[in-house]
């Protein structure tokens, strides 16, 4: 059924594929980001309530949703690796984890910085920020276990298990934190909600989001190439590649 996917299970073809695709993603994300950010910072209207501090929204929300999306992508790669014994999925998990961790950190920091003018304190135990913090710990767990083993094969399998266990627990953690938040939350603190989005605000958001998404694709492909090389360093195709590039 997935016949067309089969050639990409072999590391060499995937390596060259990601090699070719990086410049496209790179230019795409670069242009989208410049257009999106200029649009968001200069031309998009300020929020009537939060004023110009609302512009952080164009960085915080894409980062938060991408951090969740990357974890999901990582878990899917881990699942494919476990089910079909694909060696490449370990490389994908190892490549995606740091990118996801960085985006979670950005989402956390911008969330705190956005909340300060509204709530007066840097850190508020808001449901979304707390879940984002737990997500960061889950990412750090995957990265830590990936570097804990000397043998790359074992490291890959262990990281996949933790990614899968994490993705099963993620919704449970998210809802228990939200439930915990409503339990202890006084009604006064307004949530970090997305105010009603007028069209002039929506389109710059979409462009920014796509820009960040392609940025993730670019960096992940670069890291993916590194992981493939590290995992196949004893294979002949890697040796020939090195000799060619050495010339």
């Amino acid at each position: 059924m997935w016949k067309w996917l089969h050639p990409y299970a072999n590391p060499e073809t995937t390596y060259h594929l990601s090699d070719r695709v990086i410049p496209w993603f790179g230019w795409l994300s670069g242009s989208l980001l410049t257009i999106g950010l200029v649009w968001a910072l200069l031309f998009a209207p300020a929020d009537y309530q939060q004023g110009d501090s609302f512009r952080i929204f164009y960085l915080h929300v894409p980062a938060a949703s991408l951090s969740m999306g990357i974890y999901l992508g990582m878990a899917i790669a881990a699942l494919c690796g476990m089910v079909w014994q694909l060696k490449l999925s370990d490389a994908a998990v190892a490549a995606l984890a740091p990118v996801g961790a960085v985006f979670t950190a950005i989402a956390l920091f911008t969330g705190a910085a956005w909340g300060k003018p509204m709530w007066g304190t840097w850190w508020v135990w808001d449901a979304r920020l707390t879940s984002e913090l737990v997500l960061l710990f889950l990412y750090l767990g995957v990265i830590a276990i990936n570097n804990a083993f000397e043998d790359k094969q074992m490291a890959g399998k262990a990281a996949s298990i933790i990614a899968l266990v994490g993705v099963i627990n993620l919704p449970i953690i998210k809802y228990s934190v939200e439930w915990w938040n409503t339990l202890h939350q006084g009604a006064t603190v307004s949530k970090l909600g997305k105010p009603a989005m007028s069209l002039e605000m929506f389109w710059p958001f979409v462009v920014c989001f796509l820009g960040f998404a392609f940025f993730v694709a670019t960096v992940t492909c670069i890291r993916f190439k590194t992981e493939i090389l590290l995992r196949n360093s004893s294979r002949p195709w890697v040796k020939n590649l090195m000799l060619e590039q050495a010339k």
Partner: protein
Amino acid sequence: MPWENNNTIEFISLFIALQSLSAQIYLETKQLTCIKQDRILFEDLNVQFRRGDIIQVAGPNGAGKTSLLRILAGLAQPYEGTIEFDQNNINEQLELYRQNLLYLGHLPGVKSELTAQENLEFQLSLHGYGNSDAEALLADVGLLAFEQSLAGQLSAGQNRRIALAQLWQSNAKVWILDEPFTAIDAKGVEAIEQKILEHANNGGCVILTTHQELNLPSNRVSRLELDYRF
């Protein structure tokens, strides 16, 4: 050539090979490849282990002998290739394969908090020999008066004898023994060698590694040489 692989196979006598050719194949590896820490230990290994065979896996340290044995036992996964027991992949019928396998690794698997008898009884019942007489087996391996002493107070050689006592009871088709003679005295080694020969004669297949010379009839032992690859 019933065995073809890129490792040199030292044949003792063609007659034995022809005679064993007809025997039933227990275990067969197909394009088996193992990579540890980015070093290829062995590549495209196609070996057949037949009924009545005693195979000594030989090679310098680091050549991948233990890794090969652990992969054959199903403890470790090879980088590529498959292992077949009775013509179907071991990963598909793990429990059946494990019923016909006895694996003794570097570590004896003996708990120091339990007595010798408790240890042996646990290991025997784990492999389905629950009702066998542990005391008699301990006597066979020269641990007559030590049944009730804690394994922690026994020497390494005695601990290994507790694990080796299973050989006197197990009639599993495939025995995989990783350096069974370490820390065993000469008399013990001799008894174990006889046990291996006896098991091979009545239809078992024994795969072992050892650094000392096996004094078994040389026409009964064939060697699988693994060389150190950079």
